[in-house]
């Protein structure tokens, strides 16, 4: 099955998107954020919390704000401190936290010897590489299927989450995402340890990552099949969580600044800077990112706003390219969200899904199920999900977020997930060769709709290129939500870099990615 698409229009979209994203990069490259700095510290091996449960990495960055000069970057401070004290980063962190030491004492406004950091960076990088290799080896023996069945767990308690995840795995889930508690994205630190008290999701902590990964690895050891693990590199700690995910072998990360800007009211500069680093980390770790365009359609009308999804996908593609991510790690998002009371909803969904498929042929597209128009009628919901599953296999999507019959009611029960998996399996089987057995008629409603959406996306991208992404966000183009350049949470954590600023982690990772690519 194939749509005939105008390649000129597609090229124009890519040109616009490049322009838009590059302009953001140029504007924001002179800045860093507290979360980027904390991430650098994590990659130097710093872990743990102080007596008040404040992570050492926060303690250190806050400390430098008052006792050093953050504009030079945390690495600068650490390099001087290590060079002078010959202590490990972790020891330095502890001592600073105890008030036994001040980084201000070692700070110099001249370039330090960064090679003192190398052994610590090496250790983190080695761990990430090992994790990546482990994933690749296991997946070579048991390749991931296509589509991959992706379900969420969201009990709020990591131990219950594990029970739920193992049941999902037993019922054939390929990917498990642990949803985060409602409040976390606005926290400017990463909570610590195993947690049991979330609402609508479970805290993202390194220990929770580890526990779930361990459980899923246990499943893999017994059954051969590797089950991927997902969390959210988003919110105010975006790059830190990307780093934790890289260390604990997560396989995918929801990662999209636009989501944070629009739906969490996070300051756009803050999160775009954070995103740039987080994508470099995920790219280096071989972690697939998932973008959040689907959310535009849960909030506004999916039929009218379909082109905003395509436009945003092009922009997100370019942002990922900045991080040297290969297309195979770009899980661009879209969704099946057209109102079921609309005539021909299935045809429009097929048009949209097939359009995304053809525009980003190498990307493992993330296809989201109906959520907005799900109701308490679990039987109708079961049919909505079946149609979505059909659209998924008919247009050959890759990352298949399964719809829950109880979407409008509660975060999934164990049985909801099993029903969703069975629904998908049945459709995969029944429609196995369907995509290869039918053609879209030229001039049909499906084709016309795809053309219209692509044309509108192009017009929108032209406009954004003209006015700049920040203005577009102010206009409320995406999801009907308006956000100002200097509004939202976390702007205080953004700072202008000193000419001597260096982020050695980012540099080394980018270099490694360049090398991999060549």
């Amino acid at each position, binding site marked *: 099955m194939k749509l005939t698409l105008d390649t000129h229009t597609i090229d124009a979209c890519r040109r616009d998107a490049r322009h838009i994203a590059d302009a953001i990069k140029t504007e924001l490259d002179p800045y860093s954020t507290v979360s980027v700095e904390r991430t650098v510290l994590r990659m130097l091996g710093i872990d743990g919390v102080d007596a008040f449960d404040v992570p050492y990495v926060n303690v250190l960055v806050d400390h430098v704000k008052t006792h050093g000069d953050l504009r030079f970057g945390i690495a600068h401070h650490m390099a001087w401190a290590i060079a002078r004290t010959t202590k490990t980063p972790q020891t330095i962190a502890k001592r600073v936290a105890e008030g036994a030491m001040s980084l201000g004492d070692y700070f110099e406004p001249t370039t330090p010897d960064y090679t003192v950091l190398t052994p610590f960076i090496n250790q983190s990088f080695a761990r990430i590489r090992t994790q990546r290799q482990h994933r690749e080896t296991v997946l070579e023996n048991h390749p991931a299927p296509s589509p991959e069945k992706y379900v969420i767990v*969201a*009990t709020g*308690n990591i131990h*219950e989450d594990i029970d*739920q995840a193992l049941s999902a795995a037993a019922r054939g889930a390929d990917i498990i995402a642990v949803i985060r508690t409602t409040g976390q994205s606005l926290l400017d630190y990463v909570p610590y340890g195993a947690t049991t008290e979330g609402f609508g999701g479970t805290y993202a902590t390194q220990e929770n990552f580890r526990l779930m990964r361990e459980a899923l690895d246990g499943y893999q050891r017994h059954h051969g099949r590797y089950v991927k693990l997902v969390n959210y590199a988003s919110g105010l700690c975006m790059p830190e969580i990307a780093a934790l995910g890289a260390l604990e072998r997560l396989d995918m990360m929801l990662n999209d600044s636009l989501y944070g800007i629009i739906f969490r009211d996070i300051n756009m500069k803050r999160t775009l800077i954070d995103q740039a680093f987080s994508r470099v980390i995920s790219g280096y770790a071989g972690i697939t990112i998932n973008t959040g365009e689907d959310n535009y359609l849960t909030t506004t009308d999916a039929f009218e706003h379909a082109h905003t999804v395509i436009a945003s996908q092009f922009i997100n593609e370019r942002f990922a390219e900045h991080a040297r991510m290969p297309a195979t790690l770009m899980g661009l998002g879209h969704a099946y969200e057209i109102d079921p009371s609309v005539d021909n909803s299935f045809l429009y969904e097929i048009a949209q899904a097939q359009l995304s498929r053809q525009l980003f042929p190498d990307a493992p597209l993330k296809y989201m199920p109906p959520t907005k128009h799900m*109701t*308490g*009628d*679990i039987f109708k919901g079961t049919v909505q999900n079946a149609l979505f599953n059909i659209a998924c296999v008919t247009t050959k999507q890759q990352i298949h977020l399964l719809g829950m019959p*109880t979407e*409008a*009611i*509660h*975060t*999934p*029960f*164990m049985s909801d997930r099993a029903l969703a998996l069975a629904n998908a399996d049945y459709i995969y089987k029944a429609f196995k060769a369907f995509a290869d057995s039918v053609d879209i008629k030229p001039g049909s409603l499906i084709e016309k709709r795809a053309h219209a959406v692509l044309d509108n996306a192009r017009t929108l991208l032209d406009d954004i290129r003209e006015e700049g992404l920040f203005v577009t966000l102010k206009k409320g183009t995406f999801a009907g939500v308006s956000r100002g350049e200097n509004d939202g949470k976390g702007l205080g954590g953004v700072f202008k870099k000193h000419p001597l600023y260096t982020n050695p982690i980012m540099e080394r990772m980018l270099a490694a990615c360049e090398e991999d690519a060549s």
Partner: protein
Amino acid sequence: MKPLMRPYGDTLNDGKMQLSFTLPMEVGPKGEAVAKALCETMGVADATVVHSEALSEHFSFYILYGTLTHAVDSDAVEVRDIDTESMSKDDIEAYIDAHFDHPITFIGASTGTDAHTVGIDAIMNMKGFAGHYGLERYRHVKAINLGSQVDNETLLEEAIKHHADVILISQTVTQKDVHIHNLTAFIELLEAENRRDDFLLIIGGPRITHALAKELGYDAGFGPKKYAHDVASFAAQALVNKRSQSKR
């Protein structure tokens, strides 16, 4: 600690369950209130009507989720299941060879006005069902399938005529408990004719359970996902037990 069992949603012992039913009243706030009140009578707390719709002016449908406040002690729950072990076809044939000097005769039918034969055929015919051969293909077994719409009197006559060891009855239609009436009538017929002990009596069908069979006075009952070898295993062993008991 007692293994108290409660339904489970996403937290152990949370008691979460789903219910749905129709009420013979107009849809609306009153209907929802009645639906929730019914849940209360059941011990389902915090019931939420997640969906309601009109089926007509006088009927309405509700889907609810709630929290069951009851629990059961799973140790105290009795499972009434066939207690003989299920053997393979080969083993059954060997078992009959070892314990019987004549083939076992099974006579079967779908009785009353029930015209469903797929169930009884699944057990008796050569081909069997879902990859399990039927009794006709077993060595040392004689399988006589009378088909469907057979009345109780005819079944008994034929069973006597063929010196059947085992009578197999299939019942598929269960509306208004027609199967119960029909199965009860057969037992009464046997007792009236003083024939109850001449046969092993086995029933089956989609709504038949072993517990129900015992309640109605039959020797065993088999439901979905039971095949010829399950039936033959039970029958062969039960016949041996019966013989040894009658010898004592």
